[in-house]
Protein backbone atom coordinates (compact mmCIF):
# COMPACT_ATOMS: atom_id res chain seq x y z
CA UNK A 1 0.00 0.00 0.00
CA UNK A 2 1.07 3.56 -0.50
CA UNK A 3 1.33 6.27 2.12
CA UNK A 4 -1.68 8.46 2.78
CA UNK A 5 -1.36 11.49 0.44
CA UNK A 6 -1.06 13.90 3.36
CA UNK A 7 1.88 12.06 4.90
CA UNK A 8 3.45 11.28 1.52
CA UNK A 9 3.03 14.83 0.23
CA UNK A 10 4.62 16.44 3.28
CA UNK A 11 7.52 13.93 3.21
CA UNK A 12 8.17 14.50 -0.50
CA UNK A 13 7.90 18.28 -0.07
CA UNK A 14 10.39 18.07 2.78
CA UNK A 15 12.90 16.20 0.60
CA UNK A 16 12.62 18.90 -2.10
CA UNK A 17 13.09 21.57 0.58
CA UNK A 18 16.10 19.76 2.06
CA UNK A 19 17.73 19.60 -1.39
CA UNK A 20 17.34 23.36 -1.93
CA UNK A 21 18.40 24.15 1.65
CA UNK A 22 21.59 22.08 1.53
CA UNK A 23 22.62 21.96 -2.13
CA UNK A 24 20.36 22.81 -5.09
CA UNK A 25 16.98 21.80 -6.57
CA UNK A 26 16.55 18.15 -7.57
CA UNK A 27 16.88 17.07 -11.21
CA UNK A 28 17.43 13.70 -12.88
CA UNK A 29 17.23 13.58 -16.67
CA UNK A 30 20.60 15.25 -17.36
CA UNK A 31 22.26 12.15 -15.91
CA UNK A 32 21.04 10.05 -18.87
CA UNK A 33 23.15 12.35 -21.04
CA UNK A 34 26.09 12.04 -18.66
CA UNK A 35 25.89 8.22 -18.72
CA UNK A 36 25.64 8.31 -22.54
CA UNK A 37 28.72 10.52 -22.53
CA UNK A 38 30.61 8.14 -20.23
CA UNK A 39 29.74 5.18 -22.50
CA UNK A 40 30.57 7.19 -25.62
CA UNK A 41 33.88 8.34 -24.21
CA UNK A 42 34.81 4.76 -23.27
CA UNK A 43 34.23 3.69 -26.88
CA UNK A 44 35.84 6.78 -28.41
CA UNK A 45 38.17 8.67 -26.08
CA UNK A 46 38.16 11.66 -28.45
CA UNK A 47 34.57 12.47 -27.42
CA UNK A 48 35.46 14.42 -24.29
CA UNK A 49 38.79 16.19 -23.99
CA UNK A 50 40.47 18.42 -21.46
CA UNK A 51 41.19 22.00 -22.42
CA UNK A 52 43.07 24.78 -20.66
CA UNK A 53 39.87 26.13 -19.11
CA UNK A 54 38.09 22.85 -18.43
CA UNK A 55 36.52 20.27 -20.70
CA UNK A 56 34.98 20.19 -24.15
CA UNK A 57 33.53 17.64 -26.54
CA UNK A 58 33.21 16.88 -30.22
CA UNK A 59 29.46 16.62 -29.50
CA UNK A 60 27.92 20.10 -29.53
CA UNK A 61 25.44 19.24 -26.77
CA UNK A 62 28.13 18.02 -24.35
CA UNK A 63 30.27 21.06 -25.23
CA UNK A 64 27.54 23.67 -24.65
CA UNK A 65 27.52 26.09 -21.70
CA UNK A 66 31.31 26.05 -21.39
CA UNK A 67 31.49 22.26 -21.43
CA UNK A 68 29.69 21.68 -18.13
CA UNK A 69 28.26 18.33 -19.30
CA UNK A 70 31.66 17.32 -20.71
CA UNK A 71 33.14 18.07 -17.29
CA UNK A 72 30.60 15.80 -15.57
CA UNK A 73 31.31 13.03 -18.08
CA UNK A 74 35.02 13.31 -17.26
CA UNK A 75 34.27 13.33 -13.50
CA UNK A 76 31.32 11.00 -12.83
CA UNK A 77 31.85 11.20 -9.06
CA UNK A 78 29.90 14.46 -8.91
CA UNK A 79 26.83 15.37 -6.83
CA UNK A 80 24.15 14.95 -9.50
CA UNK A 81 25.35 11.60 -10.83
CA UNK A 82 25.80 10.07 -7.35
CA UNK A 83 22.39 11.47 -6.45
CA UNK A 84 20.71 9.30 -9.10
CA UNK A 85 22.61 6.19 -8.00
CA UNK A 86 21.57 6.91 -4.39
CA UNK A 87 17.95 7.32 -5.51
CA UNK A 88 18.07 3.83 -6.96
CA UNK A 89 19.54 2.45 -3.73
CA UNK A 90 16.88 4.24 -1.67
CA UNK A 91 14.04 2.91 -3.82
CA UNK A 92 15.52 -0.59 -3.71
CA UNK A 93 15.85 -0.62 0.09
CA UNK A 94 12.40 0.87 0.58
CA UNK A 95 10.82 -1.76 -1.70
CA UNK A 96 12.66 -4.59 0.05
CA UNK A 97 11.67 -3.26 3.48
CA UNK A 98 8.01 -3.60 2.54
CA UNK A 99 8.48 -7.14 1.26
CA UNK A 100 9.49 -6.55 -2.38
CA UNK A 101 7.34 -6.81 -5.51
CA UNK A 102 5.44 -9.89 -6.65
CA UNK A 103 6.79 -11.86 -9.61
CA UNK A 104 3.88 -10.64 -11.75
CA UNK A 105 4.51 -6.98 -10.94
CA UNK A 106 8.23 -7.36 -11.66
CA UNK A 107 7.38 -8.34 -15.22
CA UNK A 108 4.64 -5.81 -15.86
CA UNK A 109 2.20 -3.68 -13.86
CA UNK A 110 -1.36 -4.96 -13.27
CA UNK A 111 -2.85 -2.00 -15.16
CA UNK A 112 -0.92 -3.04 -18.29
CA UNK A 113 -2.00 -6.70 -17.95
CA UNK A 114 -5.65 -5.66 -17.58
CA UNK A 115 -5.58 -3.58 -20.77
CA UNK A 116 -3.08 -5.34 -23.04
CA UNK A 117 -2.71 -8.93 -21.82
CA UNK A 118 0.23 -11.01 -20.63
CA UNK A 119 2.82 -10.55 -23.40
CA UNK A 120 6.02 -9.39 -21.71
CA UNK A 121 7.59 -8.57 -25.09
CA UNK A 122 4.80 -6.10 -25.87
CA UNK A 123 5.17 -4.40 -22.49
CA UNK A 124 8.96 -4.20 -22.79
CA UNK A 125 8.67 -2.74 -26.30
CA UNK A 126 6.35 0.03 -25.09
CA UNK A 127 8.56 0.70 -22.03
CA UNK A 128 11.57 1.01 -24.38
CA UNK A 129 9.81 3.32 -26.86
CA UNK A 130 8.30 5.28 -23.98
CA UNK A 131 11.77 5.73 -22.48
CA UNK A 132 13.09 6.99 -25.80
CA UNK A 133 10.33 9.60 -26.15
CA UNK A 134 10.50 10.63 -22.48
CA UNK A 135 14.24 11.30 -22.50
CA UNK A 136 14.24 12.91 -25.95
CA UNK A 137 11.48 15.21 -24.72
CA UNK A 138 13.14 15.86 -21.36
CA UNK A 139 16.40 16.92 -23.00
CA UNK A 140 14.57 19.13 -25.51
CA UNK A 141 12.71 20.73 -22.60
CA UNK A 142 15.87 20.97 -20.49
CA UNK A 143 14.43 19.00 -17.58
CA UNK A 144 11.91 16.40 -16.51
CA UNK A 145 9.20 15.80 -13.96
CA UNK A 146 11.53 16.43 -11.05
CA UNK A 147 13.63 19.29 -12.44
CA UNK A 148 10.96 21.23 -14.33
CA UNK A 149 7.64 20.25 -12.81
CA UNK A 150 8.41 19.80 -9.12
CA UNK A 151 11.56 21.89 -8.57
CA UNK A 152 10.47 24.45 -11.18
CA UNK A 153 6.93 25.09 -10.00
CA UNK A 154 8.13 25.06 -6.39
CA UNK A 155 10.44 27.98 -7.25
CA UNK A 156 7.65 29.73 -9.22
CA UNK A 157 9.70 29.33 -12.42
CA UNK A 158 7.77 30.25 -15.57
CA UNK A 159 9.51 27.38 -17.41
CA UNK A 160 8.15 24.88 -14.85
CA UNK A 161 4.57 25.91 -15.57
CA UNK A 162 5.18 25.83 -19.34
CA UNK A 163 6.59 22.32 -19.05
CA UNK A 164 3.77 21.03 -16.81
CA UNK A 165 1.16 22.40 -19.24
CA UNK A 166 2.77 20.47 -22.11
CA UNK A 167 3.29 17.29 -20.11
CA UNK A 168 -0.29 16.99 -18.86
CA UNK A 169 -1.78 18.14 -22.19
CA UNK A 170 -0.25 15.01 -23.77
CA UNK A 171 -0.22 12.60 -20.83
CA UNK A 172 -3.90 12.74 -19.92
CA UNK A 173 -5.34 11.96 -23.39
CA UNK A 174 -2.74 9.23 -24.02
CA UNK A 175 -3.48 7.59 -20.65
CA UNK A 176 -7.24 7.87 -21.12
CA UNK A 177 -7.02 6.15 -24.51
CA UNK A 178 -4.57 3.45 -23.40
CA UNK A 179 -5.73 2.63 -19.88
CA UNK A 180 -9.50 2.14 -19.96
CA UNK A 181 -9.34 -0.51 -17.22
CA UNK A 182 -7.73 0.10 -13.84
CA UNK A 183 -6.12 -3.30 -13.37
Amino acid at each position, binding site marked *: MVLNWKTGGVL*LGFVFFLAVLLVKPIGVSTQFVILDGIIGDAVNSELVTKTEEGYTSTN*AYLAKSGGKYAKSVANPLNYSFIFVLAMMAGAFLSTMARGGLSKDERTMPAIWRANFGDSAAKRYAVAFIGGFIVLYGARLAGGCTSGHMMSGMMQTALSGYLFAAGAFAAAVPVAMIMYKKEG
Partner: protein
Amino acid sequence: MTSIILAIVIGAAFGAVLDRIGATNPNWIGKMLSLKNLHLMKTILLAIGTGSILMFAGQMIGLVDVGHMSVKTAYVGVFIGGLLLGAGWAASGFCPGTGVCAAASGRKDGLFFIAGGLLGAAAYMVTYPAWKASGMLDAIAGGAVTLGTVPGSKYEGITGMSGDILGIILGLAFVVVAFVLPERPMGGGAEPVPAE
Protein backbone atom coordinates in the same frame (compact mmCIF):
# COMPACT_ATOMS: atom_id res chain seq x y z
CA MET B 1 33.43 14.94 -0.20
CA THR B 2 30.62 16.68 1.70
CA SER B 3 28.69 17.05 -1.53
CA ILE B 4 28.97 13.31 -2.20
CA ILE B 5 27.61 12.50 1.27
CA LEU B 6 24.73 14.93 0.72
CA ALA B 7 24.04 13.33 -2.67
CA ILE B 8 23.82 9.91 -1.02
CA VAL B 9 21.59 11.06 1.85
CA ILE B 10 19.18 13.27 -0.12
CA GLY B 11 19.14 10.93 -3.14
CA ALA B 12 18.35 7.87 -1.01
CA ALA B 13 15.60 9.76 0.83
CA PHE B 14 14.11 10.89 -2.49
CA GLY B 15 14.15 7.37 -3.94
CA ALA B 16 12.61 5.87 -0.80
CA VAL B 17 9.82 8.47 -0.67
CA LEU B 18 9.06 8.04 -4.39
CA ASP B 19 8.65 4.32 -3.69
CA ARG B 20 6.40 4.83 -0.67
CA ILE B 21 4.02 7.30 -2.38
CA GLY B 22 3.53 5.00 -5.38
CA ALA B 23 5.28 7.27 -7.92
CA THR B 24 7.60 4.45 -9.04
CA ASN B 25 4.57 2.19 -9.63
CA PRO B 26 3.08 2.48 -13.16
CA ASN B 27 -0.30 1.38 -11.78
CA TRP B 28 -0.59 4.60 -9.80
CA ILE B 29 0.76 6.71 -12.68
CA GLY B 30 -1.73 5.16 -15.12
CA LYS B 31 -4.65 5.67 -12.75
CA MET B 32 -3.61 9.26 -12.11
CA LEU B 33 -3.06 10.27 -15.74
CA SER B 34 -6.30 8.60 -16.91
CA LEU B 35 -8.03 10.57 -14.11
CA LYS B 36 -9.38 7.44 -12.46
CA ASN B 37 -7.62 7.92 -9.14
CA LEU B 38 -5.91 11.18 -8.21
CA HIS B 39 -4.35 10.02 -4.94
CA LEU B 40 -0.83 10.45 -6.37
CA MET B 41 -1.75 13.86 -7.88
CA LYS B 42 -2.87 15.04 -4.43
CA THR B 43 0.45 13.81 -3.00
CA ILE B 44 2.47 15.65 -5.66
CA LEU B 45 0.51 18.90 -5.34
CA LEU B 46 0.90 18.85 -1.57
CA ALA B 47 4.63 18.20 -2.00
CA ILE B 48 5.10 21.15 -4.38
CA GLY B 49 3.12 23.37 -2.01
CA THR B 50 5.02 22.21 1.08
CA GLY B 51 8.38 22.60 -0.64
CA SER B 52 7.49 26.06 -1.93
CA ILE B 53 6.26 27.38 1.42
CA LEU B 54 9.28 26.03 3.30
CA MET B 55 11.75 27.31 0.70
CA PHE B 56 10.39 30.85 0.39
CA ALA B 57 9.75 31.20 4.14
CA GLY B 58 13.28 29.92 4.71
CA GLN B 59 14.65 32.52 2.29
CA MET B 60 12.71 35.30 4.03
CA ILE B 61 14.18 34.46 7.44
CA GLY B 62 17.65 33.90 5.98
CA LEU B 63 17.76 30.14 6.61
CA VAL B 64 17.87 29.21 2.91
CA ASP B 65 20.56 30.69 0.64
CA VAL B 66 18.75 32.41 -2.25
CA GLY B 67 21.78 31.51 -4.38
CA HIS B 68 20.68 27.87 -4.25
CA MET B 69 17.73 28.65 -6.51
CA SER B 70 18.12 27.24 -10.01
CA VAL B 71 15.56 28.54 -12.48
CA LYS B 72 15.50 27.06 -15.97
CA THR B 73 15.01 29.11 -19.13
CA ALA B 74 11.60 29.26 -20.81
CA TYR B 75 11.61 28.56 -24.59
CA VAL B 76 9.19 26.97 -27.08
CA GLY B 77 11.06 23.66 -26.85
CA VAL B 78 10.14 23.42 -23.16
CA PHE B 79 6.49 23.02 -24.13
CA ILE B 80 7.19 20.67 -27.07
CA GLY B 81 9.53 18.59 -24.92
CA GLY B 82 6.83 18.55 -22.24
CA LEU B 83 4.34 17.15 -24.75
CA LEU B 84 6.77 14.39 -25.76
CA LEU B 85 7.64 13.54 -22.17
CA GLY B 86 3.95 13.49 -21.24
CA ALA B 87 3.07 11.05 -24.03
CA GLY B 88 5.92 8.68 -23.14
CA TRP B 89 5.22 9.01 -19.41
CA ALA B 90 1.59 8.00 -19.92
CA ALA B 91 2.40 5.11 -22.26
CA SER B 92 5.21 3.61 -20.16
CA GLY B 93 4.14 4.73 -16.69
CA PHE B 94 7.66 5.99 -15.97
CA CYS B 95 9.44 9.33 -15.98
CA PRO B 96 13.26 9.60 -15.77
CA GLY B 97 13.51 9.58 -11.96
CA THR B 98 10.77 7.07 -11.25
CA GLY B 99 11.97 4.83 -14.10
CA VAL B 100 15.42 4.33 -12.60
CA CYS B 101 13.86 3.76 -9.16
CA ALA B 102 11.37 1.26 -10.58
CA ALA B 103 14.16 -0.68 -12.28
CA ALA B 104 16.12 -0.71 -9.01
CA SER B 105 13.10 -2.04 -7.13
CA GLY B 106 12.91 -5.04 -9.46
CA ARG B 107 10.66 -3.95 -12.34
CA LYS B 108 12.12 -5.45 -15.52
CA ASP B 109 10.10 -3.10 -17.74
CA GLY B 110 11.95 -0.30 -15.93
CA LEU B 111 15.23 -1.62 -17.37
CA PHE B 112 13.78 -1.39 -20.88
CA PHE B 113 12.65 2.15 -20.09
CA ILE B 114 16.22 3.08 -19.07
CA ALA B 115 17.67 1.51 -22.23
CA GLY B 116 15.18 3.44 -24.38
CA GLY B 117 15.92 6.56 -22.37
CA LEU B 118 19.67 6.31 -22.94
CA LEU B 119 19.02 5.96 -26.66
CA GLY B 120 16.54 8.87 -26.64
CA ALA B 121 19.00 11.12 -24.80
CA ALA B 122 21.73 10.13 -27.28
CA ALA B 123 19.37 10.91 -30.18
CA TYR B 124 18.84 14.37 -28.73
CA MET B 125 22.59 14.90 -28.32
CA VAL B 126 23.01 14.17 -32.03
CA THR B 127 20.05 16.28 -33.21
CA TYR B 128 20.71 19.19 -30.82
CA PRO B 129 22.33 21.44 -33.50
CA ALA B 130 19.13 21.27 -35.60
CA TRP B 131 16.96 22.34 -32.64
CA LYS B 132 19.44 25.09 -31.84
CA ALA B 133 19.29 26.36 -35.42
CA SER B 134 15.48 26.24 -35.49
CA GLY B 135 15.26 29.00 -32.88
CA MET B 136 13.02 26.87 -30.69
CA LEU B 137 15.64 26.93 -27.93
CA ASP B 138 15.70 30.74 -27.87
CA ALA B 139 14.46 32.32 -24.65
CA ILE B 140 10.89 33.61 -24.57
CA ALA B 141 9.11 35.82 -22.04
CA GLY B 142 12.37 36.83 -20.40
CA GLY B 143 13.94 33.35 -20.29
CA ALA B 144 14.95 32.21 -16.81
CA VAL B 145 12.34 34.14 -14.86
CA THR B 146 10.19 33.64 -11.79
CA LEU B 147 6.57 34.77 -11.48
CA GLY B 148 7.40 37.35 -8.81
CA THR B 149 10.70 39.13 -8.16
CA VAL B 150 12.63 37.21 -5.51
CA PRO B 151 14.81 39.53 -3.36
CA GLY B 152 18.51 38.79 -3.70
CA SER B 153 18.00 36.33 -6.57
CA LYS B 154 19.89 36.53 -9.86
CA TYR B 155 16.67 35.75 -11.75
CA GLU B 156 14.27 38.45 -12.88
CA GLY B 157 10.57 38.38 -12.15
CA ILE B 158 7.87 38.74 -14.80
CA THR B 159 5.93 40.83 -12.28
CA GLY B 160 7.19 43.27 -9.68
CA MET B 161 5.39 41.40 -6.89
CA SER B 162 7.49 40.16 -4.00
CA GLY B 163 8.66 36.74 -5.14
CA ASP B 164 8.85 35.40 -1.59
CA ILE B 165 5.28 36.34 -0.70
CA LEU B 166 3.97 35.16 -4.09
CA GLY B 167 5.84 31.88 -3.65
CA ILE B 168 4.19 31.29 -0.28
CA ILE B 169 0.75 32.24 -1.64
CA LEU B 170 1.14 29.88 -4.62
CA GLY B 171 2.45 27.21 -2.26
CA LEU B 172 -0.69 27.57 -0.16
CA ALA B 173 -2.77 27.41 -3.37
CA PHE B 174 -1.13 24.06 -4.26
CA VAL B 175 -1.98 22.78 -0.77
CA VAL B 176 -5.61 23.91 -1.10
CA VAL B 177 -5.96 22.26 -4.53
CA ALA B 178 -4.46 19.06 -3.08
CA PHE B 179 -7.21 19.04 -0.43
CA VAL B 180 -10.18 19.90 -2.68
CA LEU B 181 -9.24 17.64 -5.60
CA PRO B 182 -11.50 14.57 -5.50
CA GLU B 183 -9.68 11.26 -5.21
CA ARG B 184 -11.93 9.60 -7.80
CA PRO B 185 -13.28 12.35 -10.08
CA MET B 186 -14.96 9.91 -12.46
CA GLY B 187 -16.77 8.06 -9.66
CA GLY B 188 -16.54 4.41 -10.61
CA GLY B 189 -17.43 2.83 -7.30
CA ALA B 190 -15.11 0.95 -5.01
CA GLU B 191 -11.38 0.88 -5.49
CA PRO B 192 -10.13 -2.36 -7.07
CA VAL B 193 -7.75 -4.25 -4.79
CA PRO B 194 -4.37 -2.59 -5.37
CA ALA B 195 -1.68 -4.57 -7.12
CA GLU B 196 1.39 -5.98 -5.33
